């Protein structure tokens, strides 16, 4: 997601775009949490269908749309946890190796714009 926003002393009082980017990130984390919750409660096939009904999934779909070029007709998004953002409980306890820790958590269906 290309919502990285620079900041500094000038954004000490008003950092509207920066805080919006953080809210977008929180939305992604909420979807991760909701997906994990579904995986615990439902069988795999049911969970896959239920994901698309989640409010957080539908909001992230809208977020993905905002990142598309104007000429896009269809889109699909993938939620990946890069090594630097993997929660501690998803990392090997004492490993120093950060090479292959990225994990695809969700690959969406194909959406029309």
């Amino acid at each position, binding site marked *: 997601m290309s919502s990285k926003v620079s900041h500094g002393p000038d954004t000490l009082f008003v*950092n*509207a775009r920066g805080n919006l980017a953080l809210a977008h990130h929180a*939305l992604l984390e909420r979807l991760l949490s909701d997906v994990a919750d579904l995986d615990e409660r439902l069988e795999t096939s049911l969970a896959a269908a239920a994901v698309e009904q989640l409010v957080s999934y539908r909001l992230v779909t809208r977020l993905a749309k905002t990142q598309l070029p104007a000429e896009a007709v269809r889109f699909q998004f993938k939620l990946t946890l890069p090594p630097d953002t993997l929660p501690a409980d998803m990392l090997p306890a004492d490993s120093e190796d950060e090479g292959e820790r990225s994990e695809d958590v969700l690959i969406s269906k194909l959406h029309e714009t």
Partner: protein
Amino acid sequence: MIAALLMLSISLQSIELLLTRRDFGAAGVFSWRVIRDDVAALPGPLRALLDGLLGDSSFVVLLLLQLGLSLLLPWCTHMLVPLGLLLSGLLVCIRFRGTYNGGSDAMTLVVVLGLWVARLGPPSADGDSLAGSPWQRAGLGYIAAQLVLSYLLAGVAKLREPRWRRGQALPRLLRAHQYAVPGSLQRALATRPRALAASWLVMLFECAFPCAPWLGPEGCAVVLACGAIFHLVNAVGLGLNRFLWAWLAAYPALLFWSGQLTG
């Protein structure tokens, strides 16, 4: 003092949301048309009320009302002003399915709630003085207790995490995509000894924070100044400006209670 700092905190929050209002409009990411499914299980009249207050266009009116109320805070000492801000703050949290900006929203609500309680009692004889009624002491006590807990719990949580104790978590946090930390700050903490020292400094400060009110008003003020610098660095480095103003608004309550406890 609390009212003035809270005015600044809430008015800045309202302005930020108003500046990004396209994002919670009908075509925006946070459209109420989607989010309203969260409240589908509520009784019909309550759902209709929330639709009326949090709909894609009416939410802007709510934010303008919140901005107006926040500007009244230092000038109008009626308890209805913080009550209105408490309600609007809760509605904003519902609108964003929890909070918009995490802990800063929570601390803002704590300070608003404490100020509302403080204003429930009769005004003190010397006008703006904090050393008034039991309501004022209770309201400020609530804010001070929550402030102390906010640091203590954050410190203990870090202390329990091996990556924080080994100095690995802080550089990882600074590299996290969402914070867009300036390269100079990342480089400053890039070496293991510096990262380790900074991590332990943060953990010791947060865990020792409950001692602050027992140091007397002068000692407490020094600790709070250190806290302000900590939040200032976070605001400039990580873009967490809302935390700075929300926590600053809570500081006078701890100063007051420091005087009560040691005086």
